[in-house]
């Protein structure tokens, strides 16, 4: 249960500015979704918050600024799931989830009984217990995605960052994965920031959308206010129809330019 604040976050690679003065505050348990065209800086924001790229400005959890020097402290508070996690094929499922306990285990120590208990709970919660001794390489795409989320949960961090969590999944597994994140966030009060390409799914699950373009936040708000055809045309260069379902769901449908 923690708030997450970005204050004047600026990221540049070799002098080229990738993200310019990103500001945002998430309340505890909120799901914020970063959308925007390729290269807009969505992943950079997540990677910076996870401590993988240098940034100026600050990221704060419960108004406490994250020290840039302690990877360990950061990992206790922020769990990060990359777009394509590197999953060693010959590692067992249990060992993989155990990696998530690293920020809580002392440098040279082994896992404690408490760590094992947390892993058991996470495995049970994500229905992975029967896979415990299976090797990661033998799992399907959907099971792998669950496993990565399991590792992130084992970190017991109040903030969860997801970079394109569903890009490699079919429509059914996309829904399962996002439903899972949604349930976990309700149960555990996780604060979630995700970067997503599928605008309909983004609008469906996130509390708030932030549209980024060339490193700058250009629109922010609910799905209804951000997902408008003229905004999408301007920043994505797409011609799309936006359809509003009676339940409030916003559906984005690309238009074909030539009709036959």
């Amino acid at each position, binding site marked *: 249960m923690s708030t997450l604040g970005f204050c004047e976050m600026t990221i540049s690679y070799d002098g080229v500015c990738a993200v310019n003065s990103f500001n945002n505050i998430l309340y505890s348990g909120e799901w914020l979704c970063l959308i925007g065209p390729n290269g807009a800086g969505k992943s950079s924001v997540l*990677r910076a918050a*996870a*401590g*993988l790229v240098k940034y100026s400005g600050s990221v704060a959890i419960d108004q406490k600024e994250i020290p840039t020097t302690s*990877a*360990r*402290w*950061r*990992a*206790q508070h*922020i*769990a*990060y799931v*990359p777009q394509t*996690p*590197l*999953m*060693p*094929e*010959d*590692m*067992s499922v249990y*060992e993989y989830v*155990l*990696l*998530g306990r*690293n*920020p809580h*285990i002392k*440098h*040279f*120590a*082994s*896992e404690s009984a408490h760590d094992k208990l947390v892993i058991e709970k996470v495995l049970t919660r994500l229905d992975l217990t029967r896979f415990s*001794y*299976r*090797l990661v*390489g033998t799992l399907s795409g959907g099971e792998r995605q669950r496993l990565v989320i399991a590792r992130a949960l084992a*970190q017991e961090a109040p903030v969860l960052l997801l970079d394109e969590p569903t890009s490699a999944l079919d429509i059914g597994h996309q829904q399962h994965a996002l439903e899972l994140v949604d349930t976990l966030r309700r149960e555990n009060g996780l604060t979630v920031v995700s970067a997503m390409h599928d605008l309909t799914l983004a609008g469906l699950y996130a509390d708030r959308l932030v549209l980024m373009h060339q490193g700058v936040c250009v629109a922010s708000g609910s799905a209804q206010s951000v997902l408008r055809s003229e905004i999408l045309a301007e920043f994505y260069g797409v011609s799309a129809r936006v359809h509003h379902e009676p339940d409030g769901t916003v559906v984005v449908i690309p238009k074909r330019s030539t009709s036959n």
Partner: protein
Amino acid sequence: MSTQGRDHSVLWFSLSGLLVVCAMLFGVMIGPAGPTWWRIPLELINRLPLISVDSGVSKVDWNIVWMIRAPRVVLAAIVGATLSVSGASYQGVFRNPLVDPYLLGVASGAGLGATLVFAFRGNEPSTWLIDPLPLASFCGALIAVFITYTVGTSFGRTRSTVTLVLAGVAVTSLTTAIQTFILQRNNDVIRQVFSWVLGRLSSATWGDVRLVLPYVVISTVVLLLHRRLLDVLRVGDDEAIALGVNIRRVRLTVVLAATLGTAAVVAVSGLIGFVGIIVPHAVRLIAGSSYRKVLPLSVLLGAAFLVAADIPSRILADPAETPIGVITAFFGAPFFLILLRTRKNES
């Protein structure tokens, strides 16, 4: 395969421990001169406190066992354990299964140091108070790795492991070139250098054991302490950082510790190939790929393997010695090919 079932680590650890004890016992029992083999265990029991057994081993015979065979067996165990655990650690840190402990120029640096000593003193036996050979090869190894590391880490900002390995290749070429040049100008020592390069344990003394022990103990302890962190590094630099690992510090410590151990054993035994690759891989096949098991089991099985490999090296071409590097490569290379084949079939 093994990780699919229940956890068998206790079994594997006790089996490996037993294997080390057996190999070392055979190691002191077998040899061209000395007492009849079955008398030796009896004498060993006799030497235990409070127990007295008549083994019929004479004092001269016991000296052969204790002053010639025993240090050789102990040194083989130390060298095998160190090469294996260093090899496994290097493989973990560089995330490359084909890396051996001689990467980063340890071998060529030590070779150059040894060559310099041979070239300098020629065929004359050493008149120095201390044998300069281990010292020179140890320094050569450390200097080579130091250059590799400084060059490799100062240029590579992003893919530091790749630049590090490339720097190792460059340093190896450079030192080998210098070594070849010196050898060409000093034809008379080629034989000695060649026999050094193939590795030997034949001249092992308790002094050698005492010489390497401090370095080897420090190196092994540091590496074993990092076994869990090496598992975290397996998911790549980015995710390891996100999981709270200070990867620069871990990588530097592991590389330094593995190099220290390797340089120390290379200094007394020369270059013994293949141990650092085949032992860790054999361990992975039987006990799974987690470094939490791979590192400690490599210590045990590496010791057992080299002690065992040293036995044929003594008796195969009796009274001459077969270089132990020849034995390890002779068994190691085919084993490695079989291993690659089974790996392929599994996937």
